[in-house]
């Protein structure tokens, strides 16, 4: 008989190892033995991804491994999600609009940030890559988002971040803007009036949490 702790630890390990088959198997097993799916999500999947995030920060895990961990995590979430109980009294999670700036099709970094913010409990709305300024603004207003996260990998596309910030202000949107990507630094973020800058996915999560007081 496998214990609850063993299942949860196994689930976390499957996520760290990027073992999709094992994470699916353990997610199913957790339901069979009656573990609360929310607990499996938090103490299995999220615990595993938090470790992945730590290992990435100290350069012991890299993008290929993280992509496989994400696959393993989402495989388990797909199984657990239909069984999660909705708690109407729980605090509403913060909503993030995420996308790659206009002119830029490089979305691996954006996808990593999206996944890590999702794990951190944010509701993610992905508007994709090469996203026009007006699309960011329209979507932010429509969704009443708390954060807009914009990534850029080119010196040409980074110039489309400031117009998003300006137009959000013109529309008195409440959303805070977090930016990141290879050509971006703190000075540039301050210069264009961004509320936060994440040098990598881990820092983007820390900054976003701080901005929403999480």
């Amino acid at each position, binding site marked *: 008989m496998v214990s609850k702790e063993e299942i949860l630890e196994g689930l976390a390990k499957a996520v760290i190892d*990027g073992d999709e088959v094992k994470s699916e198997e353990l997610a199913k097993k957790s339901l069979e033995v009656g573990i609360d799916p929310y607990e499996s999500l938090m103490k299995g999947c999220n615990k595993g991804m938090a470790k992945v995030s730590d290992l990435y920060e100290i*350069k012991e895990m*890299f*993008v*290929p*491994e993280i*992509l*496989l961990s994400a*696959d393993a995590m989402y495989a388990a979430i797909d199984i657990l999600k239909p069984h999660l109980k909705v708690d109407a009294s729980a605090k509403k999670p913060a909503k993030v609009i995420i996308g790659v*700036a*206009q*002119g*830029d*099709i490089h979305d*691996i970094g954006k*996808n990593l940030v999206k996944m890590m913010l999702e794990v951190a409990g944010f509701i993610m709305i992905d508007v994709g890559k*090469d996203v026009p300024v007006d699309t960011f603004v329209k979507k932010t207003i429509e969704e009443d988002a708390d954060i807009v996260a914009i990534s850029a990998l*080119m*010196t*040409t*596309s*980074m*110039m*489309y971040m400031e117009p998003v910030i300006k137009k959000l202000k013109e529309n008195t949107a409440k959303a805070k803007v977090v930016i990141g990507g*290879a*050509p*971006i*630094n703190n*000075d*540039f973020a301050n*210069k264009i009036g961004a509320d936060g800058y994440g040098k*990598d996915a881990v820092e983007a999560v820390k900054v976003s949490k701080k901005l929403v007081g999480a």
Partner: protein
Amino acid sequence: MDKMTPPERFQAVLMGEKPDRVPVIPFILGFCTKIVGMPLGDLYADGNKSFEAQFMSMRLYGYEQTPMYGYASCGPWEFGGKIGFPYGEGHSAPYVIEHPVNEIGDIDKLEVPDSDKPVGGFVEAQKLCDRCVEMGMPGIFQGGSVFTAAAVVADTTKFLKWMKTEPKSAHALLDKVSQMFINQIEYFVNRYGADKCVVFDGGPVEANTVISPQKFEEFAFPYMMKVHKKIREFDIPVTLMHPCADQNLNIPYYIKMRESLNWKGIYAWIFGPETPLKTQIEKFGTHDIIGGNVDPPSIQTKSYQEVVQLCKENIEQGIDNPRGFILCPGCEFPPLAEPIKPMAFIDAARQFGVYK
């Protein structure tokens, strides 16, 4: 005042002699389209227009860089996929529309273009190189990086995962991509002669923000070796190396490549701004030319005076490199930088880069 012409200056560095001052290779590609008032996409879509724009910019500013052709998304077009040219707002380089490899099974079906004719971007590269060689300049074209090209020939996310889940297939793809580069290099060598050719090798996907040095050793290094072994056999004298972005953890493999091939040509290294010049000089300076690596976004966002200062700091660190130093940005010159910014490089070289 300058005592040498740009060709004399660059030739002196190549020969291991001291020029009058530090040469400037500003890695200008998209930027020069503004000089001639043409759309940025033409720089990649038409080799003749690319030559015109780069040649005019070179004449206007008087820097030492001669026209070249290449871009980071090289590979898909050459294997029958589809790329888009940067004509849209915010675009700065060609991008992939259709990857030739989307599933593992597609790798077997890939046909490696042979060496009897140029394919894809190499057709445009040939137009540009023809013009350069006619005028006595080298033909500079792309010979890598194999790893970055493989990562865009295939769907990039899938390729990165295959390194873990389907390593044999990832190797098969890398092998085909490396052979494509070898065949295209051979075509250019046959057309112009090796002494007129300069190979440009570099890409961002092998950066350590993406893969580990272990993965670099297993998947990038063997194919980089394969291509460079042929470059050595062809007797191509100069190879421009641009390990793009943060590749500090990959440096031991670049050193190993040089040593194990008993390299007899010249490498000119342009690392990203993440790699200190001191490190580059320690690792390669005895044998190779080191390119400065001024931070490209700063060129775009900072003032003329600040860019001069950044260039000054770069020159002070690199000017005494034993095998020569050239002032460069750490990646492509930002296409949207103000027209005065290349002058900041030239002015800094004239003020702070004079050899006594």
